[in-house]
Structures are given as C-alpha cells and as structure tokens.
C-alpha cells in the first residue's frame, strides 16, 4: 500500500467535500473501521517486529494527518454552513414587533404631576383634601363675607346648608394650618366644582392646584420668585412673570399672574393666545390674609407671613398643548388621550 498516495488522494477528496454529510462519508471511507489505512494499522501486529515500528509510524502519521485534514475541513464546512444559514435566515425588520399592551396617562394627570413635581422640587409637601367640604373651610375661614357672591346657589353646588362641593382647592390651606404649626410648604391638587355653564374654557368640574407657604419672613417677592420658577419649569426657560394687583377675599395683597406669551415666540404671527398683549393670565395668588390665621391655632401674623396661589390644571394643559376646548379633556376619547400619553 502506497501510504503517501493514499494520503494525498484522501486529502484531495476531503478538501473537496461539499458539505458535512459528504465529509462524514469520506471520513468513514478513509478513517472508518473498514478503511484500508485502519485495516493496515490493525494488521501491524502480523508484521515482523523489525518492520512493525517503521510501518506503524508511517501509518499513524498518515492517520493523524488525515484526521487533521478532516477536522479542518469540518470546521470550514460548519463555518460556511453557519454563514449560509445567517445569510438566508433574514426577517423583514420593517414588520411590526410583537405588541405589548400600552396604557396612556390622561393629560390632566400628566399636567398635574408635572406641576406638583415642580413644587416638590421647591420644597413643598403634597397633601390631599376632600372634594366635599364644609362651608366653614370653603368660604368662612377663607374670609369670604357672608354675602360674597360666590356663596350663592347660582354659583356653588350645595349638599346641605353648611356643606358644598368645594369651589376651589383653597380649603386645604385651612386644613393644612389646622394640622400643624408653621413652617408650611404645601401643595395640593384635586377636583373642584362650580355651577359654570360649560364652554371652551369652563367646565362645572375642573382640577385645581393650590400652594401655600407660611414661614418667617415670607414676602411678595418670594411669591413672585416661586411663580417665576414655576412658569419657567412649565412654560419654558425664557418665560417672565408679571404680577398685577387684584382682589381675592383670602389674600391681601392679591395679584393676578401673567406669564410672558410662549406662543408669539413660536411663529411670530398675530398671536391668538395672548391677543397681542404679550402676556397670558395663568393664575391668582397673594399674601395670606391675616384674618385666616385667626381661624387656626399657632399662627401669629406678627411672627409669620405667607403666600398662596391657585391655578387651573386644564388651563395649563390647554395652553401647553394648544387645545382649543378644555371640554375635550373630559371626553376620554382614546384618540385624544393617545396623542399625549
């Protein structure tokens, strides 16, 4: 048997194997139990001892050589097959993924969170308050004269003579001061109710956010700084605020607060948001009227002072997102909610 010829012929066949299955067939032929080479190795014992060693070395070298070539070819073929598989196993990546259910948050909730988070950052504690409240908290302790027009049954929903659907979140001011001594840095959010005929800017049910600060040395300047910070966080870092003197029963002095228009800057056309004034009214505020401290214990107006503010969540949402009619917020149309969540 010409071992060299056998090796070179077998090597050529192995290297020509087209796939793993063909390679395996060849391997069995040249290295399997019935292969001439293996047969020859098995027959070594029958050779004379002086030939046995040299013949054995020759045959083993040949076998190792062929095994090496088979392994090499097998690796090569597996690599090619993997490449081929990866080349052909392709998906249309533009098809949609497997959908997971997705829920959207309501725009009122989002806006409410955004605003509350600003005040948490300013060091406020968020509390909750009842939507049905006593006239005492909604009007009396908020310094509303007995004849104040907002007490009228044309304006306020009554449950009993002394119980109303709160008309603002301001009752939480008194409840918070009742709950503990100053300092107070409180923010609250919730539903309020007024007998307003619904239109694009009014609904009988609406969401308000209230803030109250009572501490030593609190000034109107602190109110302005706080609201400037709020306006910039919510309406953009370029905003300015302007206070205008106004009147509310539970603050003195009282102010209305305008924010510099964020719409004009956007497109430069005659502005439908601020009507060309450059300012948009966003909330009412003021220094806590000292009469309020008379309704709670532990607050001496000679020692502490404070400010309070209240704003409409729907109005802020409407301004921020260019919503023409806030009644849309209460319709729960998923096509609407899905735009914002």
């Amino acid at each position, binding site marked *: 048997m010409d071992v060299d010829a056998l090796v070179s012929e077998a090597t050529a066949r192995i290297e020509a194997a087209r796939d793993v299955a063909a390679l395996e067939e060849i391997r069995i032929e040249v290295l399997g139990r019935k292969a001439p080479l293996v047969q020859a190795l098995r027959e070594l014992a029958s050779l004379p001892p002086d030939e046995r060693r040299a013949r054995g070395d020759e045959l083993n070298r040949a076998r190792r050589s062929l095994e090496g070539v088979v392994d090499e070819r097998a690796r090569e073929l597996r690599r090619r097959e993997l490449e081929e598989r990866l080349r052909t196993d392709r998906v249309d990546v533009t098809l949609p993924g497997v959908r997971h259910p997705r829920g959207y948050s309501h725009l009122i909730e989002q806006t409410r969170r955004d605003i509350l988070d600003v005040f948490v950052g300013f060091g*406020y504690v*968020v509390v909750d308050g*009842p939507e049905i409240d*006593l006239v005492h908290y909604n009007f009396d302790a908020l310094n509303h004269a007995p004849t104040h027009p907002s007490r009228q049954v044309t304006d306020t929903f009554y449950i009993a003579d002394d119980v109303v659907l709160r008309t603002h979140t301001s009752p939480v001011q008194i409840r918070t001061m009742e709950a503990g001594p100053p300092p107070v840095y409180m923010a609250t959010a919730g539903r309020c109710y007024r*007998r307003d005929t619904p239109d694009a800017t009014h609904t009988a*049910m609406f969401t308000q956010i209230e803030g109250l600060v009572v501490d030593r040395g609190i*000034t*109107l300047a602190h109110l302005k700084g706080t609201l400037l910070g709020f306006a910039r966080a919510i309406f953009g870092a370029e905003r300015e605020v302007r206070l205008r003197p106004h*009147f509310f029963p539970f603050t*003195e002095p009282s102010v209305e607060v305008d924010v510099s228009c964020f719409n004009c800057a956007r497109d430069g056309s005659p502005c439908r948001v601020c009507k060309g004034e450059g300012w948009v009214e966003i909330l009412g505020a003021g220094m806590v009227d000292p009469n309020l401290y008379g309704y709670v214990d532990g607050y001496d107006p000679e020692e502490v002072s404070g400010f309070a503010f209240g704003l409409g969540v729907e109005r802020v949402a409407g301004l921020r997102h260019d919503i023409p009619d806030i009644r849309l917020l209460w319709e729960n149309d998923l096509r609407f909610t899905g735009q914002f969540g």
Partner: protein
Amino acid sequence: MRVPVSWLREYVSFDTPLPELGELMSMTGTKLEALHRRGVPRGLELYRVGRVLTREQHPNADRLSLCTVDVGDGDPRQIVCGASNFDAGATVAVALPGAVLPDGTELRIAKLRGVESHGMMLSESELDLGQDHAGIMLLPDDWSVGDALIDHLAIAEDVLEFEITSNRPDCQNVYGIAREVSAALDADLGPWPGAEPEATGSGSVEDHVTARIDAPDLCPRWAGRVFTGVKVGPSPPWLKARIAAAGMRPISNVVDITNYVMLAIGEPTHAFDLDKVAGREIIVRRARDSEAVTTLDGQARTLDTDVLVIADAERPSAIAGLMGAEWSEVTDGTTTVLIECANFDGPSTQRSSIRLGLRTEGSSRWEKGLDPHLVPHALALASQLMVALTGAELVPGTVDLHGELPQPPVVGLRKERLEALIGVAYTDREIERALTRLGYEPQDGRWLVPTWRAADTTREVDLIEEVMRIAGIERVPAEMPGGHPGGGRLGEDEVLRRQVVGVLRGAGLTEAATLTLWDAGVPDRLRLASGDARRDLVEIQNPMSAEWTAMRTLIFPGLLHSARTNLAMGQAAVAMFEVGHVFLRSGEALPDQPARAAGVLAGEGAGFFEAKGVVEALLAAARVETAGFEPADEPFLHPGRSASVLDGFVGELHPEVAAAYGLEGTAAVFELGVDVLRGPPREEVLYRDVTSFPPLRQDIAVVVGEDVPAGRIVEVVRASGGAELAAVDVFDVYRGAPVPEGRKSVALHLVFQSSERTLTDAEGDAARERIVAALAAELGGELRE
C-alpha cells in the same frame, strides 16, 4: 365700567397716551379690559356746525326739502334733507362728502331725485349719540357756524373699559376712576363734581313731602329734594353723548340726570313724580308679604318682607335700589320731581335682586355696599343739573334722614412691616404720596381712611396693599423662599396614587377622567338593591341639570360610558381606568370620600381572568400577598364570573347592566379601595436571604371534585407545607380521561427554600407527603402520578 375719556379728563388731566394709561391702570389694580372708539371713526374735520340759510320744497319729492347750509367757509352747500323738524336759521350738525359715519358708511355727493346733495344734516342716531332718528339734531344757536363739531359735541369718543373687582364699588364711576388715575400718574384730582345751585323754589321741602324710614337696618340714610317747574324733555346732546358712551340709553333729561349722577360719582339716584305720590308721603319700609308692584320694565312682581320698598301712603313707588314702579314714573307731563339720594344695605339689595331676578346698573352698585357719605355730593350734582337742564326751581331744604353714620377707621402703617411683607424698600415720600392721592389723610401718625374706602380698608395690611400697588408692583423682585426644612416630598397619598396609576398603565390600561356626578337613574341601571349603601347617594341641592344630581358611590359606571363611546368610534378593544374619589354617606356632615381605583376591559380580549390579572398586578405591586378571591354577590356583575377581593370586586358585567350601558359583548370591570393597596411601610420591609441556598422545586397534580376551588387547594397546601414552603402556584387544570367524570386535575408548582441550609430531596419528599396527606384528608384529593 366704561369710562368716556373726555369725561375722565374733566376730573384729572393727563398727557399719557391711552394704551400706556391702560397698562398703568392694569398694573395698579384697575384692569383695562378694552379700549373702544365710539362714534365717528376718522375724518373729524368733515363734521361742522352749520346753519340752514334756506329751506325749500324738493322739486321732485314731497317728503324731501332742498336746503342751503352755511358751514363757515363762505361756500354754502346744497343739501337734500328728509327731516322736517327745522326751518331756515336752525343750527345743525353737518357731515361733508368724504365723512365716515359711525356705522362705517362713507358719505358721497349724491343725487336725490335728480338734485345733488353736498352733505348731510345729522340726527342723533346717525352720530350714535342717542336713539332719536325722527329728525335732525338742533344745536344751540350760540355755537359758531363752521366750528368743528367735535369741539362742542363728543361725536367721537375713546372709552376705557375697566374690570372693577368686587371690593371696589368706589371705582364704579368716572370720578372714582379719575382718583385711581391721579394716584397712578401722581397727578392732581379735581374737586368733587357738583356745585349747589341757588334754591329759588317757594316754601321749603317739608311743605312738599314728608318722609320716614321704618326699616333703618336696610336703609341707613334717605335724602330727597324737591324740584318744581320741571320741564321734562330730551337731554342736551352733550349729556346724551356721555350717557351713551358710558353704555346706557338716554331717556329724558330727568332720568338722564339721575343716571349721570350714578355714572359720575357712583350714587344711584331715583326721580319720582311727586304729584303721583299719595299723601306726598315717603315711607321706606319692608314690603308686605305678597305685596305686588309693576316695575318700570312692565313686569308685575310679587314681593316679600325681605324686600325694601319706597312707598307712599298707599303702595310701593319703587323697589329700593332696584327699580321704580311704573305708576310713579316721571313722564312728559311731570312738573314736580322728588330726587332720592339714599343709602341702602348692600347684602339685602343683593338678596332682593337675586330673588326678583332684577339686576340693574343701580343694584350692581348697591350690592357691593356704598358709602352713605356720598349722599351730599349726589344731591349737589343732581340739583345743579336739574336746575340747569330742566328749567326747574330747587325748593329750599333737604329731607335727610339717618341715624349716626359710620365714621371711617384710622389705621396705622409701620414702614418696616410694609417692607417685610412686600420685600421692597420704600421712602416715606412714596408712602405718603400713594396714600394721599387715594384720599387717605394723615392723622397723628396714622391714616384716616376715606369714607368711600371704609369697608375695604380697616387694617395695616390693607394700607400695605395700597402703597405696594401705587408705588409700582414692578419693583417687587423675584426671590425664592427656603422650602420646607424637612425637604419636599410627594406625601403618602400621592405616592400611593402614582403607584396605582403606574401599575395600571403598565398593565395596558389607559387613564380616564370621568364625571364625579351621577344622574338619579344610575343605581337602577346598576341593579343596586334597596338598602345597598351605594344607592344612598349624596345629593346636590341645586343641580344644574338632571344629568348631574348626585355624587358617585362607584367609579366604574363612568368608565362604562367611556368604553361604549370608544367602541362606537371603532376601537377594537378598550382598557381604561380611573383613580378618584367616591362619596358615601357617613352620618356626619361630611360624607366618607375614599379614593378608589376602577377599570374596565371591553371589546376584544375582555373577560374575568384578564381583569383579575390586572387586579393581581395591583396586589403584587402593593405586596398584598394574602388577598383571597371569593365568588362575589354584586348585583351589577355576572354571578358566576365575578369575585370579591379585599374591599372591592372584579368580574364580568351582568348582561342587564351591560345592556343598560349599551355595551355589546363581554365587558369586565374591577374596583377597589386605594387604601388597601398601601402595602407595608417601606421601612418595615427587611432583608431575607434568598440567594445563599438554592430552592427545591416540585410539581404535583391533584385530582379533586369539580366543586373544589383552586384557591382552597392552595390554602391546604400552604397550611400543610411547612415553614420551608416558599411559593405555591396553580399552573394547569385538566379534565377528561383518565380523570373521572365530575373531577378535575389541578397541577401546582411548589417551591421550598430555607435561608439557613440547602434542603435535601428527602426533606422535599417529606413535605410533599404531608401535603398530599392533607389534600386527601381535607379535600378528598388524590395524587395524580
């Protein structure tokens, strides 16, 4: 409040351009709402005082006349005119070709029935000065021909419209606004309008009228004067122009004078035809119960004893502060007039106004409370005008009934307190200037409040506000306070709310905001039985509509509406939730108002187990591990496909309820209290070793009777599994061969784990045997191999 600028300038002079003035007023507390231009929009030079030189019949038209009119430039114009209330020699208002009328029409040389007309002689209504369009306006003969009409008559007027806050009734008049302008601009304010005329009438007022106040609580002051020889007629053009520019309708000289006094200084006054007052007697009293009166607007009204009236010996001649009676009205034939200048109680006038549904310019001033010291000013101004404009003679004397009038307070102002509250430094001069411009007078180091501000300024802080706003609110800097020493935080309720909202959104539900208010039919639609606490609605005494009459006791019904509308709009599946409050009667003044979370799944993929999965996600997030689901007995849920859990429920809707809400197909809902989702406080959650020793897992399948709930199997496994049993999960239920009819096979994963050692298979087997034995003993269960 509409303030004609020419009128305003009578009391305070200024050069400030109007937009700038408006801005300044807004920034000092009197917000400018609008700046109107009334009357002739432009081209005022084309409006002249003219004199009719000739008047002849138009050759081709019976109803037209052909006039020549001198307009002062030596070139008399030929004008065709349709009016007939004048003759040659009349002084008239002329608009020349090119003039633009208040209604926007541009005047041209026109041919009328073949004759050219080079201008127009104007009526009041054409100039927007009044209603009179029957004839042209006849001007006083001492007006010089050729003068610009605007020099005599406010044919063009800028009107500032201000928003007046409810605490400032003193600003509901031109003089009050002028005072604010004077303070804002630091300009001098003119004297109070009105100069007492000479009383030339005969006798004295007591000879003409007697008066008494029977209800001093509702009428602190009543004053009146009598005018004789009154000639009722139209007001002069200037008066009509002012009344109209201020937004009222000119009526007659006497009525216009009363309105003028109100608009000028804020005191509503009333004129009576004294000859119609029975017994010439004025009694200010409460109305009798069911007493009837027909007011000037022709409405018959029924009064009650809370309504104040001005009566004569027989009947009411006016509802105090609101409106006069028809029968005592001043008419063309009136010659003797009683002018009333009184002070009525604000709240009671407001009550009457609401009760009678009668709100007038007068009542809107009275209801905010007016200064009783206005009366003398009003009397002077009214008297001056009555004498000047109606030819009347003032009868000497004044009826003026009042008790002790309230004296305004004297209030101290500490500069350091002012600066501490506003955060701005002020000079003494600034403080003094602001307050004196507003009418405050220094008195022994304190400030005497002007009478017209007595109700509104009683405390130091009220003076602080005055100084702040007049000295300039723009000066207030922006500073940040320190924040709570304990740091800002969301607070328990908000943290919990956000956790619940987050889980539900993560579970694929979209948040909704539904109405808190229900109509009365909701309990029936939900099949709530009588006696169910959720039927006992907190009702609104004064609902706006039949749809909103009571507060909700459950949240999910609102979501059913949203689900239906969204399905109707083509959504294949709807999954929505809301976190909010419900309202349950408590026996106390305030109802219980717990927060609850509710959800609805409707359309594709909606069913009991889908909804239960959402509830389980909520429970897992809250670490509520032991909540049991029991078959529920809720009238609005499918009895076989619903469960109660904690203080709530989950299940498919009862078909009748689904139908009542217009939902087709299966809809599942859940609702439970947010409080039960609070979970253990974070600081109570302590470390357990779950990593050092591996868990031992075993699965078993147990065959039980069909009536044994899976939850019961889990309970038995838990009770018997020993301390190392860490978890039990049902993962399969199988019915059919070889499991006998009437029985089912329930497969469970069991996990055993110890935090102290690795458990051996033998320990696991022992626990498994205990469990199998307990299942056999308690539930008749057999292990399925």
